[in-house]
């Protein structure tokens, strides 16, 4: 049923700390690995994986952005992105077959692959690029929040968390109930000023992002004053070396 359920009390989701993420892509690999061996659906296929133009299906990807403040040095921010399990999920309501659905109990957005016709409309409706059509299976793939891990009593308790969260070496990914204001993830969001992506579109994403903490603006590094350029005054040993080496064959300007 593609009618959205009333907002659930439990809203399972991720909190991603942009201050802590080091951009190692371990979450991407863990996600690909778990969801390729999972019984939940078709494996995440690759096309031409060892050829000249490899492509493949991924449910989690890490972008990197450069942010230049008015004052102070430029920062690089690594930015993991997967399904945000929106409360007002347009990917669910556009689905013509009922394959896309949002669970009433915990708010997880899933695809029933047996009913998916592979029309791609749900991916059109998603502003975040969270859904990818699998070229081999012909069905839409998306983050399941590792629904086959988080409730899986066959796994040790420590592993009952999404594969991306379990593997993150920096502790930049947190999993929990964002519907409960007292949960650890909700407290983290409140404390750090967690925000929504593209709030103006009104999708009400459940996943939240924590902003990078403010950086020092006065100085790039305490060693910076000691690293002033040398040898540009045309005097001394360095300058002589520079001139002499420049005369050798193969020297650059």
């Amino acid at each position, binding site marked *: 049923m593609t009618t959205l359920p009333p907002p659930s009390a439990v809203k399972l989701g991720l909190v991603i700390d942009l201050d802590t993420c080091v951009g190692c892509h371990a979450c991407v690999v863990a996600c690909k690995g778990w969801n390729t061996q999972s019984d939940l659906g078709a494996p995440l296929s690759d096309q031409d994986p060892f050829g000249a133009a490899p492509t493949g*299906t991924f449910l989690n990807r890490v972008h990197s952005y450069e942010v230049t403040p008015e004052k102070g040095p430029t920062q690089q921010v690594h930015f993991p992105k997967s399904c945000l399990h929106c409360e007002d999920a347009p990917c669910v309501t556009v689905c013509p*077959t009922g394959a896309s659905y949002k669970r009433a109990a915990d708010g997880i957005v899933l695809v029933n692959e047996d009913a998916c016709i592979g029309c791609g409309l749900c991916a*059109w409706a998603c502003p975040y690029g969270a859904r990818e059509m699998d070229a081999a299976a012909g069905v839409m793939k998306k983050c399941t929040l590792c629904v086959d891990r988080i409730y899986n009593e066959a796994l040790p308790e420590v592993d009952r968390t999404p594969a991306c969260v379990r593997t993150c070496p920096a502790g930049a990914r947190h999993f929990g109930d964002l519907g409960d204001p007292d949960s650890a993830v909700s407290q983290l969001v409140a404390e750090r000023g967690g925000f929504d992506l593209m709030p103006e579109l009104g999708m009400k994403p459940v996943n939240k992002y924590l902003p990078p903490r403010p950086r020092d603006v006065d100085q790039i590094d305490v060693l910076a004053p000691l690293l002033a350029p040398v040898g540009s005054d045309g005097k001394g040993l360095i300058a002589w070396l520079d001139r002499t080496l420049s005369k050798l064959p193969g020297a650059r300007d």
Partner: protein
Amino acid sequence: MHPAPSVIAFTTFSGLGFGLLFWLGLGQPAPTGWVAFAFFALAYTMAVGGLLASTFHLGHPERAHLALTQWRTSWLSREGIAAIATLLLGGLFALLRMWSQSGPALGWLVSLGCLATVFTTAMIYTQMRTVPRWRHWTTPALFLTLSLAGGALLANRSTAALVLLALAAVLQLVAWITGDKQFAQSGTTLATATGLGEIGRVRAFMPPHTGSNYLLKEFAYAVGRRHALQLRVIGLILAFGVPIPLLAAGLTHMTALIAVLAHIAGVLCLRWLFFAQAEHVMGLYYGKR
């Protein structure tokens, strides 16, 4: 957006087919016998051919019947139901016409069904919050006007065709003028997409992967956009510039054929632009539009 040939063919030809069926339902013209058969066959070839073309891009066409189940929320589902209901009623009406029976109430219902089908097709695109260019009243207005204009041309309703073609040309210009500004007006930028705008100017520094992927192929299609102006002019000339003077001069069999072929080629060109020029907000994450 990736301009998939199957979707361009589908929207163009099913639009024309349902446009012709609209006029036939109104009894404009009201042929009987084999002439009726020819008219309805033409409408059905285009409408059904278009619908079949649309299934070519599906990953699992064998499950297409499931697409009729989610009419409560899905415009694509509504479109499927409207199309099939209209074609069934239209088939009954066609049989009546071939045996010279009149069924004005059924005819009106068929015409209404045609309008509903084209409108639901347009709403599939209009509903997308992710594609600001499409999210505008001109999208359904233009789809409906083009369908009725093309239908009138095929049904040899010269006056109606003339008025509707002129209206469609104006709507197309309005859609371009407003559409070119809509992405900027939507307020969605890389700053809101990443939430990093508060800190400073955001630039996509490194993509998540070195190759291409489904998202880039489907949503960040930019090939041919640099020829957009030329294609807009070509589309306008073919879709409206050729048929309008021919209609005004009075159609012969030869000029009617030229007018119809030019119009179809023009609408195909305009539909290609409709997709190729549509920018999906997802592209922002890759620093693309």
